[in-house]
């Protein structure tokens, strides 16, 4: 079957790949571009660990047909890195014990980033709502919520 040429911005860089019909964005990112930060969890839209930002909006990459991002900007967790330094959200997650096995963390961080980009000082309830599409089976949600609140406080005082 013919492959489709696809170009988009991936974490600020232009990328060009060929995708099979029906390939989802998660597979394109991991297997064709080599960005392993978004994870495969359920493939159904129930867990949120494949979350990425498309043109700044939180989307589930496993439910996104890859060719629909042509010409758009896709940001994954890998976009948060700043040389050797952790992003304030990553630092807050580490300091608040918000990761145990770490499998949900890429999605949690992208959901948190989507929230803080729009609302720099959210309430507890707004944080709960923002990560309501992301499942964590280890730490429970309170450390994650506290980390996001801590990161937003850090931003507010910076």
């Amino acid at each position, binding site marked *: *079957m013919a492959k*489709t040429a696809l170009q988009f911005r991936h974490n600020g860089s232009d990328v060009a790949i060929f995708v*099979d*019909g*029906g*390939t*989802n964005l998660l597979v394109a990112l991991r297997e064709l571009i080599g960005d392993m930060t978004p994870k495969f969890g359920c*493939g*159904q*839209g129930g867990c*949120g660990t494949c*979350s990425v930002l498309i043109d700044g*909006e*939180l*989307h*589930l990459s*496993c*439910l*996104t*047909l890859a*060719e*629909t991002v042509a010409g758009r900007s896709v940001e994954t967790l890998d976009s948060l890195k700043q040389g050797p330094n952790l992003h304030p959200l990553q630092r807050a997650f580490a300091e608040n014990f918000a990761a145990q096995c770490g499998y949900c963390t890429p999605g949690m961080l992208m*959901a948190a980033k*989507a*929230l803080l980009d729009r609302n720099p000082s959210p309430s507890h309830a707004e944080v*709960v*709502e*923002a*990560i*309501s*599409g*992301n499942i964590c089976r280890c730490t429970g949600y309170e450390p994650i919520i506290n980390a996001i609140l801590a990161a937003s406080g850090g931003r507010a005082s910076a």
Partner: protein
Amino acid sequence: MTVTVKTFTSSSEAAAALSSDRNARYLGGGTLVMRALNEGDISLSTVVRANDQALTRIDSSGPRITLGAGVTFARILGERDLAFLHAPARSIGGPAVRNMGTVGGNLFAPNPYGDFTVALLALDATVALQGGFGSRDIPIEEFLQSRDRQAGTLVLSVSCTRPTSAEAFRYRKIARIKPKGGSVITLAAHLPISGGRIAGARIALGSMAPTQIRARAAERALEGRALDAATAAAAASAAAEGTSPSDNALGSAWYRREIVGVHLRRLLLGQE
């Protein structure tokens, strides 16, 4: 498994492609069709898309509102004029699902999903369809009854009349996980009041039958009555009549029949 993706600039071309191929599905936000592809659904060999701007249009200025089939729940939540639809839109998914899922797709969402459609059924919405041979409008109830046979038609938009007051339209989704999760049951009630009495009651239920259904016996118990405790109790006792819920991981059919009246009574009386 690879599928053929066909992208069109107009909805009529997409509708023609959809109606000519039994194994084609229309891809809206992806939350149903991409899930089916991820699960290896072999009945699906062609994915049809349309980049038609008309599919994402919202007309909410007048008493009758129209939502393009491709309008997402996140966009509805951003429209102040659509406040009466905010509760059902907010009850769906997490933020990512609301950024993706569409009004048109929700019409096809099986249990325990399809909550927005419960609200539209209570509001007596009209569904605009485009088939291979032209377009037509049908009542949402008729659409849902024939949903399994609608595979070859494309939903263009959904329209409904705005409730006369905030009190006249009520919605509640019962889920085990808050603030998100599949529906145990979903209820919506449109209760226009005329001269102190209910005139034209419509009660819609989700997860109480293979598709969203109206609770006609409960509607009859409300019709022409004042909305008081006795009326609410009469409607509640009739709520399960004509329903055929199933067992699933969120609740048994027995449990759904037991609680539907309780939640309907609370909805009617404005109780938590």
